[in-house]
């Protein structure tokens, strides 16, 4: 296997000892089939045990290893070194506070997810004895795409609106709301609308589309938000025409 020496320029920061973040460079002998995560693991295992970062599955399903790689938010386990130049700049995900080295504080994202009521609000409660809720493959197909989100937050790192205003509910949370709104078993669109249709919700989005560009699972949060704008606009005018109607 061919080996190639690559310089990793990694942004380091320990709040206990550092005034501010600073770059540190490591020379790593990379195998042909390595991903950036393999190179970072090499740094930790062999060169510098003080480097902190998140990772888990190494196959782009857990969403833990998001990092800025040469300025682009990517999953480091799916960023192939063979596609990179000899110098790779690695930073923690943009638009999140840095906790330590490549680990960011994701509390705001967790709050945003919770805020859109990401659970089924069914038409009626059904006892187990009454049997299963039924859903056809066609009904599933309508929202299946939006179930693919792995909460990696690359979309938040890419979104210029979130960069400007942290109040923005954000792509993944809005795509998740859309997933439930489209689910035939759910009647909660009205319940979610206070957050989703607020100025910090879908209306903060100007359809830049960077979120969908970086999404590793083609969830297309930008598309979800635009679809929600249409639905919300209809709801809005219907609400004006029939004020007593409570969705």
């Amino acid at each position, binding site marked *: 296997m061919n080996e190639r020496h690559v310089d990793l320029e990694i942004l380091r920061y320990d709040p*206990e000892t550092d005034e501010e973040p600073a770059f540190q460079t490591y020379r790593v002998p990379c195998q042909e*089939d390595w991903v950036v995560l393999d190179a970072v693991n090499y740094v930790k295992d*062999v060169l510098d045990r*003080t480097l902190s970062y998140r990772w888990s599955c190494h*196959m782009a399903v857990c969403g833990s290893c998001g990092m800025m790689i040469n300025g682009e938010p990517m999953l480091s386990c799916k960023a192939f070194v063979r596609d990179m130049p000899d110098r790779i700049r690695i930073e923690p995900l943009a638009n999140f506070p840095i906790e*330590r080295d490549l680990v960011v504080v994701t509390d705001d994202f967790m709050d945003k997810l919770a805020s859109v009521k990401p659970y089924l609000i069914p038409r009626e409660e059904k006892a187990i004895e009454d049997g299963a809720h039924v859903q056809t493959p066609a009904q599933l197909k309508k929202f299946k795409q939006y179930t693919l989100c792995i909460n990696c937050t690359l979309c938040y790192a890419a979104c210029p609106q979130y960069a400007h205003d942290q109040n923005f509910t954000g792509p993944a949370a809005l795509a998740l709301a859309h997933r439930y709104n489209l689910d035939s078993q759910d009647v909660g669109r009205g319940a979610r609308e206070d957050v989703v249709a607020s100025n910090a919700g879908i209306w903060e989005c100007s359809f830049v589309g960077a979120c969908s560009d970086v999404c590793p699972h083609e969830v297309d949060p930008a598309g979800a938000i635009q679809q929600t704008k249409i639905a919300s606009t209809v709801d809005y005018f219907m609400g004006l025409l029939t004020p007593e109607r409570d969705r």
Partner: protein
Amino acid sequence: MEFVQYHPTGLPGTGILITEGSRGEGGILVNKDGYRYLQDYGLGPPDPWPRNKAMELGPRDRLSQAFWHENQKGRTIDTPHGDVVHLDLRHLGEKRIDECLPMIRDLATSYVGVDPVHAPIPVRPVVHYTMGGIDTDIDAKTRIEGLFAAGECACVSINGANRLGSNSLTELLVFGARAGLGAARLAEAEVSHADEAAIREQAAAGDRVGRLFRNTGGGESVAGLRREMNATMESGAGIYRTEESLSRSCAVMNDIRRRYADVVLEDKSNVYNTDLIQALELDAMIDIAGAVIVSALARRESRGAHQRLDHERRDDEAYLKHSLAHYVAGEDPTIDYRDVVITRSEPGERVYGGAHK
């Protein structure tokens, strides 16, 4: 703890899983001669094919064992990342693959440079799941009052010596819920069950974290010890085990345990210190590896995922029991047993494929 499932189709090198679904859709496993070798191991006949429950959908332990035998016979394919066989999906066609297995196509293309539409995927058995775990009852309660466990770390046991794919979903949804609800109910009860004095005493005596921070000297690396542990577990306690291979691994693990005392933390930060996390995890893994080996040595039979070359028969009289490993500080764990409770299905002969029709 001796029961560890190997999944038959992982990518070489990364160990990334190629889902059973690819065989469910009709993928076949062939050796270096392009031969569907599973028919040699009681899983056949290969035809008629395609059909439901084709031999490639045999149980994971049998498929992994078949690979081992093919490897012994020199019929596997040599690659820089180890020996493999081929998972062939070409006959499914591009449309079916894109519709039903798009993730597989992406994984194989990205990580091993193979497009399954045009070429077979190199695969080999990879360690996948631990059937054993923390002993819990049906309410996810452990033997420690107030401690609940659910998921792969727990053993209710719904898996036994062999495990059906996706049972982990059951473990999370059913027992995760029971654990959560049970814990909430317990927390809401007026009485505290914690023996605070005992806890304080244990914490002071243990203080693994403090010791790691204070340790000086060094010379042992967490990553190095971990790699040695991986290697000895794979070779000594893998798909097939013997008294000799297990004893050898036992000695290696005891040596690793001794050398662990010389692990020094390079990272002394109190903020998200992953050097510390990895050191603590290694400590725990060394104990668990010991439990696996000792349980495997004690079980002198072959059953499901635990296969002994020196005890090939299944022995229900002596071993239709769950092994329980008890931690003993500074020594090998002690093993005792609990009878398996049979309610509906009596243990029978494991016969697969068309042979029993």
